């Protein structure tokens, strides 16, 4: 008989301090990007740009070449190598047929996407050219670089149409307004973003970003522009003459690149701190974060956010493709479901059409509750096995909170000693590695410290039998705990300092009876008060 009086209450994950990362639609959406494909380039990848039209190749500027990749198979389609020095800022024209790139030899080269030899070479800059973009009318390009000048070129004649010498320092970024033919926007290391109007040859607007500007971006409507430099992004209202709308600072190192997603509802920023952050344009809150292995120099998003390409300082190029649409996933689910249903149906076909008679006793088929392995062992009071089941990699790597909950349940049942004792080298090292990895986690520490103590207690008695590898792990655990202890002491010292500052602060306020505004000010900045 397999009945029981009440349901077995399964182990619940150990509650982790802090708010769970919210599972918003954005998370799901950006999680859809698959595991990255990385390609090694010859130098730091300074720029990535997608072809706006089919076949949606993307141009990668790295070292002395510009390479076209096909996102379908992640293979290079073509290499433009007619550069005499480092190539910068290769971008496509709106129709996707021409490509322009700057060069460290101060020349700007224009290529046909199908060709190999530059169609035009624009000479005039005196220092490396970092920014090259096509203007909206498709007949002109603008370029800017280390000679502080911004030039607008006529493609057919290779002549300079306009030259703006307003910037005081290197110009490192620029863009054109999508809805106006004559607006050019550039950001420079002189901390300013300037807007030029080719009709007047004048700088029509200046905003001061406060740090060297690494990237600028303009909304398609042309009314709001974003500038990135230092570790912050600033949002400016163009229509109000450059009023600062918002400052967003979520990176802790210089932001190097900014991009819109395909429909301009999200902004992506890449930074030297190895993160790509995605912001909602309505609130400028971070909605998602993607980690990379190296400082990020450039990024771009393909049409419909199908592909995210990120160029990094260690000359790696990372390509992430979106899983082929969610619809397919659903289909898979349906297939699975129907398969399961079919299986069930084949099992219980007999009862489908049966109508019971009045006097019949109906016994409902009970579906067996699916329990996790460790729960099954807990139900059978096999505590050692339950612990082993919680220490398999799937559980303890992906859900350490489950493993900690199992530890806690063992403590509750007073069987932790028995469960921990008598482990072989393999299991013991897994256990110790788990402790080493998680013992400094604030939420788990109270439980894991107890467990670690018990492990040491149990195995210290027979330490000569313990293999060397395990002893090394014990030593590592000791070191980690020691380090954590030191850290805690430091933290307490810091807390003590802060307490004295705050309390002296509040006393000062009481004495001087200042008005509330200053109280708030001093409360927020206790350090400054101490200095004074």
């Amino acid at each position, binding site marked *: 008989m397999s*009945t*029981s009086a009440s*349901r077995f209450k399964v182990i*619940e994950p150990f509650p982790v301090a802090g*708010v769970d990362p919210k599972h918003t639609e954005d998370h799901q959406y950006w999680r859809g990007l698959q595991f990255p494909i990385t390609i090694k380039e010859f130098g730091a990848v300074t720029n990535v740009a997608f072809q706006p039209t089919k076949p949606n190749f993307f141009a990668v500027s790295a070292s002395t070449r510009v390479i076209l990749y096909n996102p379908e198979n992640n293979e290079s389609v073509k290499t433009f190598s007619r550069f005499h020095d480092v190539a910068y800022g290769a971008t496509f024209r709106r129709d996707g047929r021409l490509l322009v790139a700057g060069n460290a030899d101060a020349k700007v080269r224009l290529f046909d996407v199908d060709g190999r030899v530059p169609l035009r070479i624009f000479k005039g800059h005196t220092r490396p050219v970092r920014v090259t973009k096509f203007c909206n009318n498709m007949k002109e390009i603008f370029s800017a670089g280390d000679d502080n000048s911004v030039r607008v070129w006529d493609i057919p004649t290779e002549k300079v149409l306009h030259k703006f010498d307003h910037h005081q320092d290197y110009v490192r970024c620029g863009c054109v307004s999508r809805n106006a033919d004559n607006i050019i926007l550039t950001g420079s290391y002189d901390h300013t973003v300037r807007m030029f109007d080719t009709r007047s040859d004048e700088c029509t607007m200046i905003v001061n970003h406060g740090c060297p500007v690494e990237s600028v971006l303009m909304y398609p409507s042309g009314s709001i522009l974003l500038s990135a430099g230092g570790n912050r992004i600033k949002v400016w209202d163009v229509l109000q003459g450059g009023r600062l709308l918002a400052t967003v600072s979520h990176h802790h190192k210089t932001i190097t690149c900014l991009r819109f997603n395909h429909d301009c509802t999200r902004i992506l920023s890449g930074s030297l701190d190895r993160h790509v952050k995605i912001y909602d344009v309505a609130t400028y809150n971070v909605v998602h974060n993607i980690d990379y292995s190296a400082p990020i120099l450039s990024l771009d998003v393909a049409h419909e956010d199908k592909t995210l390409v990120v160029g990094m300082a260690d000359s790696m190029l990372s390509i992430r493709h979106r899983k082929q649409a969610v619809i397919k996933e659903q289909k898979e689910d349906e297939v699975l479901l129907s398969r399961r249903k079919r299986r069930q149906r084949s099992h219980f076909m007999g009862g489908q059409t049966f109508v019971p008679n009045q006097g019949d006793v109906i016994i409902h088929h009970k579906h067996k509750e699916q329990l996790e392995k460790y729960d099954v062992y807990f139900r059978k009071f096999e505590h050692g096995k339950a612990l082993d089941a919680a220490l398999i990699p799937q559980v303890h790597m992906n859900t350490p909170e489950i493993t900690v909950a199992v530890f806690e349940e063992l*403590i*509750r049942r007073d*069987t932790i000693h028995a469960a921990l004792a008598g482990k072989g080298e393999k299991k013991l090292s897994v256990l110790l590695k788990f402790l080493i990895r998680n013992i400094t986690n604030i939420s788990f520490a109270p439980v894991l410290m107890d467990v670690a103590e018990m492990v040491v207690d149990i195995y210290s008695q027979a330490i000569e039998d313990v293999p060397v590898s395990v002893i090394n792990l014990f030593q590592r655990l000791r070191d980690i705990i020691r380090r954590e202890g030191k850290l805690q002491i430091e933290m307490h010292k810091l807390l003590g300092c802060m307490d004295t500052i705050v309390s002296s602060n509040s006393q000062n306020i009481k004495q001087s009876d200042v008005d509330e505004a200053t109280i708030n000010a001093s409360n927020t900045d206790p350090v400054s008060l101490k200095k004074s």
Partner: protein
Amino acid sequence: MKESLQIVQTGGSSITKFNSIFSHDSKYLLCPCGNLVKVFSVATGECFQRLNGHCKLVTMICHHPRVQLQILSSSLDGTVKVWDYEDGILLSTCDFNVPLLGIFAHSCYSTVAFVIQQSDDSNELYRFTLNTIPSKTSDIACSLLAKNVVKDCSKRIAFSEKFAVVSYSNRLLVFINPQHAERDEKIRHVLKDNAPAITCISCHPVEECFATGHANGEIRIWFNISDVKNVISSIQHWHSLEVLSLKFSSSGSTVLSGGHEGVLVQWLEDSKNFLPRLGSAITNVAVSKDSTLFAVSLLDNSILIITNYFTIKQTFDGFTAIGQNLPCGICYDSNTNACVTNGKPGHLLFYLPDKDIQLYNLDIVSRNFISSVDLEKPLSKTNILKVGFGGTFDGVKHMATMEFDQAKQRDEKLKFWRFSDTDQQWVLETIVKSPHDGCGITSLTFSPANNACVTTSQAGFAKIWFKHDEEGWLCEMSLSFRDLPCNDSTFSEDGSVLALAFGHTVCFCDISNNEEMQLMLSHSESIKSIFFGRQSCQHLLVAATSEELLCWNVMTKSMYWSSHIHKINFLICDIHSENMAVFTNSNKIFVFQPSDKQPHYSHNLSIDVTAACFVPSKNCHIAWQAKSELYLVSKEMSVHKFCVKSEVDDASNLSRMIIKSDQVTPMSNYLSSTQQKTAKTVNSNRLQETTVDVSKCSFHSSEIIKCGKSLIKFV
């Protein structure tokens, strides 16, 4: 002239402390419960009848040997009473003048019954004749059978057709033909020295054999018992801990046993059936006469009716409060109109005190019941220390619970729950792990004005939790004052001011405007609990130290009055009227209003009160209980209330009131209403049929009359 009030028990008490029995037709389960015998209906799960007459604890009940619908009950008040349990009538009383610990009768011995009398140094088993029960003590013909019976006698003595067994810890006394004074024969079996102590015993209904349960979990079946030298015993061992109860089925083919593991074991000839996870230790097993139903009494004060194919048919819950005290006190929940307190281990009990009915046990801790490996070292349990209910905002009502394993000093969790209207159940919203670092939480209070909750701890922190739509409940403020322990917190009725008792100081703060604490009222002694007055006393704050009751006017920041009361135990506040009540350790109660120093009412209670609660009610005869009644819970977990003398009889006849009143529980209420509806329609149909029948044929008249009777009853 004030009416003198009396305190009357309305419910509570353990239903599993003593053995319960099935009625012969298996329709009812009878169990001793405090001074009452409760008759539960197995089909509906409701208390069908209360046999009220004993003035002390009823210790045991058994069937009358001859009359099917009668039972005998023994009580500590020294009487044996004979009852008709279906009609609830006391038939006769037999007074022994000695506290009785048990009564036994067997259908084979029609004229005699056996009682255990408690005397100063030993308990003695006596036989007496049932034939004519005289009213005078001296007339009872008693004859002594056995001396020095073990105290927990009901499980240690068993009667069969031909013999009776009295077990001591390591010996057995078998009486052959115990009903005859002349022919009885005593046989003594002594267990070997190293044999485990006997804990329970059961006789085979037909054969000359019996089974004993032992302290180490063994079960021994004894055969050939009339032969002293060649008695045969076979040992079965599954239980790892003491066997607490043992019963042969009525045919004798199987044995049921239960113990601390909470697993019911059915021993067949060569196999065993198990029913695991009953939730608590099994203290007693009863088998119905047809062997189709088993009644399993659990230590957590509930009885499960289990069918012979091991499904649970019905549950009867007593006032399932754990241990000797209620750590979370009693709260009133306006949603269900119930009192909320600790129930089964890790559960919250929702209890209707006016009807003595349990609504449900809500699982808060969600842990499996695990029996300890060693009975000497019981496993510590995570208890619910505090519970609080919030007001209804945006149509959502909240509850917060605080749980803590005090023995191990771990597993401190604050849980916030939301009542889901669609599912009609509490849904867990937020778990906060060790909110106060295990430093003894002292109070948990919800703001009446918004979704905010305050928890205070001995470590001196008051934490204020706010509900956020996405993140759930978050601590937004943590207040402390000179590292003094924070003993209590209270909100003013409009929720604008929060008062916190830090040591001997009361601080006020306005949590909605996030202002600093201000206006401190100080006293020389540490303040234990504080309450804001209600309604017309909103400006008054009542505080209790261990020796003094204080009342401050918050508007003028001055002491309004103070009064010296010796050893204050606890203070409670009625949220629906201005009344407050203070209880002392010497069991005095003072009911007062903050605006008046003189108490309305004071009384010396005869019971040890551990918790009390005001419950709103309408029909009350006592002036100060016009809006709400005061219910008290004693240390023995019995529920009491105050009654006017004239009302006492009424209250004691509660049983009848209950049967008549249809409102029982929301669920059964709902069910019974639907059942009634369908039943009524069925009845009306039947009425038509019967009338047709009458017109058609006359010889079914008797049946029709019966039908009509039942109809009348129903309508």
